[in-house]
C-alpha cells in the first residue's frame, strides 16, 4: 500500500506503487505569451495550439478567436481575454499530464510569471531593484528589496492561489498537488535590507547579524506571506501541498532557518486537512564540508513538523541515487520520509544534446532507489524539478517516459 492517503474526492484514486507526479512549472504557450504582450503570433505558434487542443481534447475555438481578434484590432488583450488564455493554457497542462499518465497533477503554474516574482509582486514592503539581476548564465530575475515587514497586498490571495486552485480543482480528473513557494527561498532571493538593519542594531558579530537577519525575514515571510496561501488553499479543498525550497542547502549553517520557516507555515494546519511535501533541488554536492548533497539536511529535518511527510528530490541530474539516498535510509528509524524520486534530468544541456532517458533507465533508477530505501511504498516518481525552461514537446515526452518507466518498475 502506498504511503500517501488519497484525499476524499471524486478524483481518480491512486492505488499502485510508484505513483507519479509533476513538480511544478511547464513552459507557457508562445501564442498565449505573445498575445498577452500584444505581439504577432506566427502561423506555427497558432497551429501548435490547434494541434495540442485536438490531441488533448481541450476546446480552443475561443482562444483562437481572441488571438485573431486582438491581432486584427492591433490591441492588447482585455483582462477577461487574458484570463481565458490563461485558463486554456492551465487546462491544457492538466490534460497533458493526465493523458501522459501522471497521477498527481497541477496546471504547470500557467498563471505564474515565475516562482519568485509571482509572490514578490504581491508583497507590501518589497521594492523592486531597477534592473533585472543576472543569475544563471544569461538568465536574470527581478529582485526585490525588503524595506519593511512583508505583508500581502489587498486581494493578493485571490491572485496567488484562490483562483488558480479553484480552477485546477474543478478541472482535474486526477488527484491534485499544489506547489507553493517556501519562505526561505524568497528570503534568499531578495535583498534583506530591513531585517539586516535591525540585526546590526542588536548584534556585533557579522555571522550572527547575517543569521538573525535571515531568520527574522524567513519567519515573517512564513507567517505573513506563505501561510495565508496555505490556509486559503486548504479552505478550498487542497490536500497535498508542496513547498518549493531550491535554496535549502545554499547556506549550510542556515539550514535550521529552513526548518523553522517550514514549521511556521505548517504548524496548526489540521492534519486531516492537509499533507505537506518539500521539493529540494540544487543540493550542494560539493559542499566544502565532509557532508554533501542531501546529507546536509540531516539531522535538521528531523525537527520538521510531522505534517511534512515527503521530500521531492533532484536526483537524475547526478545519477548517484545510492549515494544521495543513503542518508534517508540511515535516519529511517528516527524518521521516515516518502521520497519523490527525480528520475528525469530536466537540464537545458540534455535538451541541447537532444537526448532522453529511456523507460528502462527510469525503471532502473526507481529500483535502485528502492534497494537503498528498502521500502517500495515510500517511492513516488517525478522529474528533477519544474520544466519551464524546456520546450513543451520535450516536457510531454519526458512525462510519458516517466510514466512508462514507473509502469515497468511496478512489474519488477
Amino acid at each position, binding site marked *: 500500500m502506498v504511503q500517501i492517503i488519497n484525499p476524499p474526492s471524486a478524483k481518480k484514486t491512486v492505488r499502485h506503487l510508484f505513483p507519479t507526479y509533476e513538480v511544478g512549472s511547464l513552459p507557457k504557450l508562445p501564442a498565449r505569451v505573445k498575445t498577452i504582450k500584444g505581439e504577432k503570433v506566427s502561423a506555427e505558434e497558432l497551429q501548435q495550439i490547434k494541434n495540442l487542443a485536438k490531441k488533448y481534447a481541450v476546446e480552443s475555438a475561443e482562444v483562437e478567436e481572441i488571438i485573431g481578434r486582438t491581432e486584427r484590432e492591433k490591441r492588447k488583450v482585455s483582462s477577461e481575454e487574458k484570463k481565458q488564455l490563461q485558463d486554456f493554457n492551465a487546462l491544457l497542462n492538466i490534460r497533458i499530464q493526465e493523458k501522459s499518465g501522471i497521477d498527481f497533477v497541477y496546471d504547470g503554474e500557467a498563471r505564474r510569471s515565475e516562482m519568485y516574482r509571482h509572490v514578490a509582486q504581491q508583497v507590501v514592503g518589497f521594492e523592486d531593484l531597477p534592473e533585472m*539581476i543576472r543569475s544563471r548564465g*544569461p538568465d536574470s530575475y527581478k529582485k526585490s528589496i525588503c524595506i519593511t515587514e512583508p505583508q500581502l497586498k489587498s486581494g493578493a490571495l485571490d491572485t496567488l492561489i484562490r483562483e488558480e486552485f479553484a480552477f485546477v480543482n474543478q478541472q482535474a480528473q486526477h488527484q491534485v498537488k499544489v506547489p507553493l513557494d517556501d519562505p526561505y527561498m524568497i528570503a534568499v532571493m531578495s535583498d534583506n535590507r530591513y531585517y539586516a538593519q535591525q540585526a546590526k542594531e542588536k548584534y556585533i558579530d*557579522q555571522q550572527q547579524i547575517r543569521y538573525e537577519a535571515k531568520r527574522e525575514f524567513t519567519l515573517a515571510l512564513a507567517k505573513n506571506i506563505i501561510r495565508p496561501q496555505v490556509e486559503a488553499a486548504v479552505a478550498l479543498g487542497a490536500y497535498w501541498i508542496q513547498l518549493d525550497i531550491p535554496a535549502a542547502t*545554499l547556506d549550510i549553517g542556515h539550514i535550521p532557518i529552513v526548518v523553522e520557516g517550514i514549521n511556521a507555515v505548517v504548524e496548526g494546519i489540521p492534519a486531516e486537512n492537509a499533507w505537506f511535501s518539500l521539493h529540494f533541488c540544487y543540493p550542494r554536492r*560539493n559542499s*566544502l564540508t565532509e557532508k554533501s548533497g542531501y546529507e546536509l539536511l540531516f539531522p535538521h529535518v528531523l525537527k520538521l513538523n510531522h505534517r511534512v511527510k515527503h521530500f521531492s528530490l533532484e536526483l537524475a541530474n547526478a545519477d548517484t541515487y545510492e549515494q544521495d539516498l543513503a542518508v534517508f535510509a540511515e535516519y529511517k528509524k528516527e524518521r521516515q520520509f516518502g521520497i519523490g524520486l527525480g528520475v528525469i534530468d530536466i537540464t537545458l544541456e540534455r535538451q541541447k544534446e537532444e537526448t532522453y532517458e529511456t523507460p528502462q533507465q527510469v525503471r532502473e533508477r526507481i529500483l535502485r532507489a528502492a534497494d537503498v530505501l528498502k521500502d517500495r511504498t515510500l517511492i513516488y516518481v517525478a522529474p528533477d524539478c519544474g520544466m519551464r525552461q524546456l520546450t513543451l514537446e520535450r516536457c510531454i515526452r519526458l512525462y510519458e517516459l516517466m510514466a512508462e518507466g514507473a509502469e515497468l518498475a511496478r512489474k519488477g
Partner: protein
Amino acid sequence: MHAFTLYMTHLGIYLTGPFGQSQQLYEVRNEAKRGRGTEEVVRQQIEKDTETVIKAQQEAGLDFIIDPLFGQYDLFQPLVEGVPGINAGRQENWFNNNLFYQKPRIQIENLQYTSGWSEKFLHPESLPKDGSWSAILPSPYTLLILSEISGYQNKKSAIQDLAKLIKAEAIHLASLGAGRIQYDEPVIVVKQSLGSLKREDLELLETAIDICGRVPDTTTVLHTYFGDAAPLLPFLKNLPVDCLGIDGTETNLEPLLQEDFSEKELVFGRINARSTDPEDPEELVTELKKVAEQCHPKKLWLTPNTATEVDGYTHAFKKMKILQETKRLFNGTNN
C-alpha cells in the same frame, strides 16, 4: 611614528569583481536568448556599458580600474572555454548566492600552460595602460576545489599545474597592461567558516601561491571573500603576495585589529556588495582609521567584499559613490 603617519595619509579604493548588468544589457540578452535578437547586438551593448563603467571608475577616482566583465558569467568561464582539457560540468550555486557557475571539469593530466584565454572577456584597449588596470583571475586553490578533476592522481600535482596555468595568464595580462593581478580565493575562508579546513588545504594554497604569487611588473592580491578570514590571518599574511583582501562583511573588526600588516597591503572589503543597504562613509572612516592605526598596513584599500553584480547596475554605482565619498573623507581628515 612620523613615518607611519605619512604612510597612512592615503586610502585607495577600487572594485573587486563583475559589475551589475544594465537593464539595456538584460533586454538585448533576453531578445538574443529568445531568438529575436543577435549576439552581435549583445556584444555592442557590452562594449557600450564597459566604456561607461570604466569611465565612471576613472571619474570617481578609483585607484585601480577593473573590466566590468559583462560578458563573463562566472569566474571559471574563460578557463572552461579557452583551455584545452578543461570543459564545463554541472551548474552549481556560487557559494550562498542566487548565482550559478559551471563546474570546471578537468579531464587530462599535464595541462598545457596556455595563455590568452581570458582575453576575449576583456577590453584591454579600453583599460588603462599606466599600471592601474586590476585584472581578476581565479586562485588555483579555489579552482581546484570547485572543479571535478579526473585527470590527476592527486591534488598536489593538479594544483601545481593549475598554478602554472594561472601564472601564465597573469603574465600575459601584465603584458597587456594589467598592473595588479587579483586572485579570487573564496574557498579557503568559506572552509574556515564552515569548520572543515584541514592542514592539507593550507598546504595546497601555499603550494599554489608559491608558484603564482609573484608576477613581474605587477602587484598581486589574494582576495578572500564569503568567509571569516580572521583565524587564518597569520597564515595568509605569510603567503608570497603583495596584498591580502579580506571580506569585512564576514570578518569581525576586533580580531583584524590584532594583526600587524606592516609587511603587506591590506584590502578591506567592507562595502557589502551583496546588500543595497548603503554604508555610512563616516562610520567607514572611523573603522578604517582604526585599521590604519592598529594594523599598520603597508597600504590600505577599501573595496566591496565581492562583485557588485548581485544587486544590479544602479546599486553598483551607488556603492562606487560610497567608496568615493569615504576616500574623500578619509584622505581629507588625514591630510
